[in-house]
């Protein structure tokens, strides 16, 4: 198309075309000239190039030589530069130089001059390494710089294993210093810083240091693989063990102390602090070991609190003893038994609550170890509930029971009032306190553990049995006291040549007084109890049983020695129909039952003693008077007054049998004498 157009153009402007043809021709000429010129220039240039070629080559060569010379100069100067760097402490620079030269020197070491340089360098490098190690060892520079040292030394091609060792050995030095300072704080004298401060120091000093060492080590020697990690773990285990030993020694000093909150906080810090290296050093098992220590301390604390409760209980008992033994000031009553009991009960309860609160700190949510399985389960159930609370209640019962079989058989050193008080205390525990304490415990320590625990009922049964044994022992002891009075009074008197009775013997009044005192004492702590219903006039009943047909039948025939067999027969027949008196039936928890027991024992003693003596007529009459007096005053204390009748009947009947001249006193006279007092 262009062609067409141009053809069109040519055909339209023939003048223009002509002119253009001229121009082209001129241009062609000029182009030719240019070509010729260029050829001349090229020719010249080629000639110049050829002339310069030789010189150019020489220059390039010179440049190469120059570079080589500079390298050589570096090498020759290397020893002095290195020395300078070392002198200036620019260890990094020195290591870089050395790194650069090492390969060359290695390659050309067969050339004597290079050999010399290499030797020099080696000497300097050795010095450098030495200095680095020195610096490394001096340690004052702190861990990051040390890490740098190690890095440089590694770059110097020092053996990594050796460096690991050295790194750890060095770290050991520092950590050991920490341990030493901790140990110094333990001291033989009472520890100056409290346990919290101690674990804080240990945590930031030793544990912090250990963390740094561990992380630096892991960074530096990561390439060492499992062998290196194992080395670190062993290192941490060993030093950690020593740290734990120190901590345990310090904690042991706390065992005697009372403040749990400080201890728990200290343990919390200790435990929390060790979680970091625990993560870094899983293999060393430091966290587990720390948890174990905390658990052990918790267990020891439980033991300590149990001991504390025990001694608190013993302290209460001592207080009661002292209160009981304190001389009564005239007109001023000491604290009553009920009050003493209330004191003991509330004191023990508050001790128990305080102990619960103290050990509860171990399970507080904010404490780092409270979510460990031990503190969620075993600590609550086996530790607190069983070990501390059930353990204490059991030990309390045991201590109380030990008063029943005291070695001092002669009455024993235990005041009877204490037996009574303990018996009531145990009974109260059975009825209310135990279930209260255990509910309290279970509420505070939500037991998630499924291990079996002592049921409330079992513990209550134990407490009840203790209460029963104590009360039984009380009856025996008090019965013995009165028995001894009666026994001495019968044994030491000459019943054959005694005078006609005009008075009740003083000992009988004493027996009634003492029984009344016991009644009052028991009444302070125990409910009245039930009596067997008696006829309405029973209170007015005098000791007229002697005139009753039964009694007459009993020993009237003894006036007439002709019919001795009948007496015996009658007496036996009567006994068949009267219930046998169980001298010692089980005591119930009420006043009447206790008093019945004591009176039965006392009267039985009187009976046996009377049977061992021989009575004159007046002796018999004195026994009659005494028994009537006892009857007048003792019936009101017992459950079944018939019992007192029966026993006193037996006493008089036995005295009559032991009397060669049994003439009884007129009942009316007996009454008059007894009323006179």
């Amino acid at each position: 198309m262009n062609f067409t157009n141009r053809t069109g153009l040519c055909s339209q402007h023939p003048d223009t075309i002509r002119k253009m043809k001229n121009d082209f021709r001129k241009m062609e000429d000029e182009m030719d000239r240019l070509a010729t010129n260029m050829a001349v220039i090229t020719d010249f240039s080629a000639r110049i190039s050829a002339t310069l070629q030789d010189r150019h080559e020489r220059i390039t060569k010179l440049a190469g030589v120059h570079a080589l010379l500079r390298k050589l100069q570096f090498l020759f100067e290397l020893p002095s530069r290195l020395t300078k760097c070392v002198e200036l402490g620019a260890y990094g620079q020195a290591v870089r130089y050395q790194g650069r030269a090492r390969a060359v020197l290695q390659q050309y070491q067969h050339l004597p001059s290079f050999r010399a340089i290499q030797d020099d360098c080696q000497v300097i490098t050795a010095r450098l390494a030495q200095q680095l190690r020195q610096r490394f060892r001096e340690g004052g520079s702190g861990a990051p710089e040390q890490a740098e040292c190690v890095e440089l030394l590694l770059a110097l091609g020092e053996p990594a294993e050796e460096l690991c060792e050295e790194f750890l050995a060095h770290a050991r030095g520092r950590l050991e210093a920490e341990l030493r300072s901790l140990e110094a704080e333990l001291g033989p004298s009472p520890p100056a810083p409290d346990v919290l401060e101690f674990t804080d120091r240990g945590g930031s000093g030793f544990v912090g240091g250990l963390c740094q060492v561990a992380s630096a080590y892991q960074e530096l020697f990561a390439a060492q693989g499992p062998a290196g990690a194992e080395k670190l773990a062993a290192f941490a285990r060993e030093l950690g063990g020593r740290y734990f030993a120190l901590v345990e020694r310090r904690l042991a000093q706390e065992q005697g102390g009372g403040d749990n909150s400080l201890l728990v906080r200290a343990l919390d810090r200790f435990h929390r602090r060790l979680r970091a290296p625990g993560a870094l050093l899983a293999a060393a098992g430091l966290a587990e070991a720390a948890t174990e220590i905390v658990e052990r301390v918790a267990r020891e604390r439980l033991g300590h609190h149990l001991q504390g409760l025990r001694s608190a209980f013993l302290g209460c008992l001592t207080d009661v003893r002292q209160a009981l033994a304190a001389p009564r000031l005239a007109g001023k009553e000491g604290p009553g038994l009920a009050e003493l009991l209330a004191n003991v009960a509330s004191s023990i309860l508050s001790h128990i609550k305080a102990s619960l609160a103290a050990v509860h700190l171990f399970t507080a949510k904010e404490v780092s170890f409270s979510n460990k399985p031990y503190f969620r389960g075993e600590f609550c159930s086996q530790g607190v509930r069983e070990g501390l609370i059930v353990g204490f209640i059991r030990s309390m019962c045991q201590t109380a029971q030990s008063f029943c079989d005291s070695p001092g058989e002669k009455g024993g050193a235990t005041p009877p009032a204490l037996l009574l008080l303990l018996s009531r205390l145990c009974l109260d525990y059975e009825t209310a306190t135990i279930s209260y304490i255990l509910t309290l415990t279970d509420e505070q320590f939500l037991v998630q553990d499924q291990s079996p625990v002592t049921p409330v009922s079992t513990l209550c049964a134990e407490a009840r049995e203790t209460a029963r044994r104590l009360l039984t022992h009380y009856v025996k002891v008090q019965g013995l006291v009165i028995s001894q009075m009666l026994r001495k009074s019968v044994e030491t008197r000459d019943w054959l040549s005694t005078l006609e009775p005009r008075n009740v013997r003083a000992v009988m009044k004493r027996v009634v007084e003492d029984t009344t005192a016991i009644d009052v004492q028991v009444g302070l702590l125990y409910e009245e109890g039930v009596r067997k219903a008696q006829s309405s006039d029973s209170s007015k009943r005098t000791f007229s049983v002697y005139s009753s047909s039964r009694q007459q039948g009993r020993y009237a025939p003894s006036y007439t020695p002709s019919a001795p067999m009948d007496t015996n027969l009658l007496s036996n027949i009567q006994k068949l129909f009267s219930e046998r008196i169980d001298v010692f039936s089980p005591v119930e928890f009420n006043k009447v039952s206790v008093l019945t027991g004591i009176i039965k024992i006392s009267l039985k003693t009187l009976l046996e003693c009377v049977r061992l003596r021989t009575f004159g007529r007046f002796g018999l009459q004195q026994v009659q008077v005494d028994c009537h007096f006892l009857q007048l005053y003792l019936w009101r204390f017992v459950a079944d007054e018939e019992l007192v009748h029966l026993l006193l009947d037996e006493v008089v009947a036995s005295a009559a049998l032991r009397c060669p001249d049994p003439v009884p006193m007129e009942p009316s006279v007996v009454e008059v004498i007894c009323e006179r007092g």
Partner: protein
Amino acid sequence: MEDDAPVIYGLEFQIHIIDFDDENNIINKNVLLHQVGEIWHISASPADKGVLATCYNKPSDSKVLTCAAVWRMPKELEPGSHESPDDSSSPAHTLELLCHLDDTAHGSVACVVWEPTGDGRRVISLADSHILLWDLQESSSQAVLAGSASLEGKGQLKFTAGRWSPHHTCTQVATANDTTIRGWDTRSMSQIYCIENAHGQLVRDLDFNPNKQYYLASCGDDCKVKFWDTRNVTEPVKTLEEHSHWVWSVRYNHSHDQLVLTGSSDSRVILSNMVSISSEPFGHLVDDDDLSDQEERRPEEKSQEPPQDSVIATYEEHEDSVYAVDWSSADPWLFASLSYDGRLVINRVPRALKYHILL
């Protein structure tokens, strides 16, 4: 079977000799009059079955003094003699006085004990605070004081019971005064051991284990029965607390000393099986029978339970205080007890236990 029973009836004092025919279950009684006074203690000679000693109250208007004497019963009443088919119509017999063991200077005699295995010539009497050794001469018609010792101490010391040990060729006697038990050497009449506060209250009776040296049982007003090894007097070997009132009498079975009988003023007699401190080790009799059988028997024996002390039986036949218990000297499975109301009860060891011990 013989048992002597002092019973107080008004002013007449008797000794009853009771014959028990085990095979026919018949009881025969012979009455001996003891005219001198009320009997408080009685003991038969080990060598001569016709001779016995009594401690009795001498009737007096102003004072009670307990004396002791040795008596011979009429020949025809001697146990085992069937000469007199007893007719109740026959008058009561009288004892023949052999000699008095009196030494009024020494006070009231609490008991008389015979040398257990001797020829019936040596007797100990306990009078207030004195222990007197008598030599009976001329067929017991003369009592010569062979030795004596006294308790020293403040207060009125008074012996309550005594027992002659069958061991050590009968050179040891044990006595009780108040709560103390003492051992005496009859050769030197000196004290060899002393158990202070053996019981909480008065000690009522003692008995030596017939088969095991040094073992002594005691009982007292603290309702307890205690077993002692007299070589270690600080602690009893064993204590029983089954009675609810004073224990008046304790007796070892003569052959099987694990069987111990006690009588108490709680009106009960208790038979205990004290296997753990017996001279018969558990299974011992079986073992010694046949050595060749031993191997076969071993496993069987091992499976058996270790010995356990236990109460075998509590006898409640008495309505009043039981003051004396004793084993038959003829039949080891028979025993008698006597209570205040004059009731004498004869019992047997339960058959099952008897076979258990024998087989």
